């Protein structure tokens, strides 16, 4: 928008991929579990229970901060953030305050192929709250139920500086952040299931020299809703400013149904969390060797991988961009290229057929039964002209559905080498030669003659050829013979 200056900062929470909770040994595998079964005196805040830090949670938080190029603060100090809410059993959340794990980092991402940067203000670790349910077994209409299975799962909170200047940038930045936490294996980054949550601060001004009011947006449960909520909010604030009014500094909720943001009914008064160091948890220094060990586990990150793919495999930016968003997909691609060194062919097939089939079955590449070796074999058969590309696509679908190799699919479907494209070509030419009248009829405009010719090819192949392939081959031969 012309003359509208947008400033956005993000606050992202990711559930860390530990097996046990942050300060007790309850399982974190809470999705779909019977309410209040993954609980203990610590995560339910029973009197006298003492928290003991899960080493892995700390390691994953440090790994996140390192990957975001943060300075790691040498001391780990936990604070109590005090507030009352039914999903918070202790009356406080164990969090971090003036000594977060990491500060002053940088996150790089790309918007339409162009490198962008957002500064990271802080990365800290804290515990998740329980879940409130408004309907369920035993939960009457006038009450709410509390399930503490989620309470105490470790979270990493990542706060950016307000360096983003459009909803598009904010969305791409968030997608990159998800990609990074997945690459690192620190979180599964699933917004729909709530293992990645994002709040945003937006301010809009009509002049580059003034700052608008900071409005916090919550309740955005997908990348699309982040984009839509921010777009709506920018528009809303800009409209107010144009009328000479000023937006109020407040927290607003994204209403997914109505596609609008609405003011939160929360307390008007500023929150006062009365942070203080948790006396149950000793502050400690991160041992240098622990830092070094964690550093060594950080893999190549998405942006570096994309640039390497563009350099090494001569892929275009948009293709490389899609490939590297999913680390497993990028690895599948590379493994396939190792066996069939034609990167662009592999890339095309992966971005079209592989993704199409994954989406159709709502699967990830990790769940796919097709190995990189199996795809390489299929592509080799196309290269040797044993089969055509359209037949290859059909075979791939079958491979994907059954886990069979390309040759197994061909055997099962009765697609012998006779019906492979190279052999079919011979039969097609033979049929053309033997039926000059039909050829003349077709070229004279009688479409029906083509069906007769297809039928002849099918007869010779005893019905084993793919009629679509036969038709295409016939058309190619007939038109090239003109």
């Amino acid at each position, binding site marked *: 928008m012309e003359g509208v200056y947008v400033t956005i900062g993000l606050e992202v929470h990711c559930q860390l991929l530990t097996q046990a909770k942050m300060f007790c*040994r309850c399982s974190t595998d809470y999705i779909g579990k019977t*309410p209040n079964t993954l609980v203990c005196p610590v995560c339910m805040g029973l009197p006298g229970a003492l928290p003991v830090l899960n080493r892995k949670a700390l390691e994953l938080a440090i790994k996140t901060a390192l990957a975001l190029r943060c300075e790691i603060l040498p001391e780990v100090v936990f604070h109590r953030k005090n507030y009352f809410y039914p999903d918070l059993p202790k009356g406080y959340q164990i969090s971090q305050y003036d000594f977060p794990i990491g500060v002053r980092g940088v996150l790089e991402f790309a918007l339409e192929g162009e490198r962008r940067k957002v500064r990271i203000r802080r990365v800290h670790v804290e515990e998740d709250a329980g879940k409130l349910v408004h309907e369920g077994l035993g939960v009457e209409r006038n009450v709410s139920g509390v399930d503490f299975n989620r309470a105490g799962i470790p979270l990493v909170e990542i706060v950016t500086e307000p360096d983003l200047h459009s909803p598009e940038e904010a969305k791409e930045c968030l997608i990159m952040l998800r990609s990074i936490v997945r690459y690192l294996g620190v979180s599964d980054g699933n917004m729909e299931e709530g293992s990645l949550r994002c709040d945003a601060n937006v301010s809009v001004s009509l002049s580059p020299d003034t700052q608008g009011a900071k409005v916090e947006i919550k309740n955005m449960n997908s990348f699309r809703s982040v984009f839509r909520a921010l777009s709506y909010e920018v528009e809303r604030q800009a409209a107010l400013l144009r009328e000479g009014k000023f937006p109020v500094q407040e927290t607003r909720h994204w209403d997914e149904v109505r596609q609008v943001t609405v003011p*939160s009914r929360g307390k008007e008064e500023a929150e006062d969390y009365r942070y203080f160091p948790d006396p149950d948890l*000793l502050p400690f*220094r991160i041992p240098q060797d622990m830092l070094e060990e964690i550093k060594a586990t950080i893999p190549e990150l998405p942006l570096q991988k994309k640039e390497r793919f563009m350099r090494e495999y001569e892929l275009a930016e948009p293709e490389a961009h899609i490939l590297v968003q999913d680390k497993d997909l990028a690895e599948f691609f590379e493994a396939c290229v190792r066996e069939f060194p034609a990167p662009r062919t592999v890339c095309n097939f992966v971005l079209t057929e592989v993704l199409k089939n994954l989406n159709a079955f709502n699967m990830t590449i990790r769940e796919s039964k097709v190995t990189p070796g199996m795809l390489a074999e299929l592509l080799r058969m196309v290269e040797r002209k044993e089969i055509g590309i359209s037949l290859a696509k059909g075979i791939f679908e079958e491979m994907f559905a059954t886990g069979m190799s390309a040759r197994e699919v061909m055997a099962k479907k009765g697609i012998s080498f006779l019906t492979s494209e190279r052999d079919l070509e011979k039969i097609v030419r033979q049929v053309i030669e033997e039926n000059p009248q039909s050829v003349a009829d077709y070229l004279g405009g009688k479409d029906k003659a083509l069906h007769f010719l297809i039928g002849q090819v099918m007869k010779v192949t005893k019905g084993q050829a793919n009629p679509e392939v036969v038709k295409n081959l016939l058309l190619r031969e007939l038109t090239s013979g003109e």
Partner: protein
Amino acid sequence: MPGHVSLEEVRKIAQLAKLSFSEEELTRFFQDISDIIAHFEKLNELDLEDVSPTSHISWSQPPMNPDEPVDWQGSDLVLKHAPCAAGRYFIVPKVVEKEEKLS
């Protein structure tokens, strides 16, 4: 202002802690808290220019848990002793706001 607390602040602290007191009680707490703060004011007489803030006196490596889940069998008992429970849920007055409070 260091070393002082107002009656209003005491009222606010009580409110944040979800505690309600009579005016008499508030006045008493106001007096007590003022005395406690005055006592701690003595620390300001020390020159602590070169001392970094200390949140705990111990700096040893604390014990940490391995990342291996362990079942706890007492949840039924906790539900049984809860002020209000139904099914497998702890029951609380209706929470109107949809948001899950966490930031």
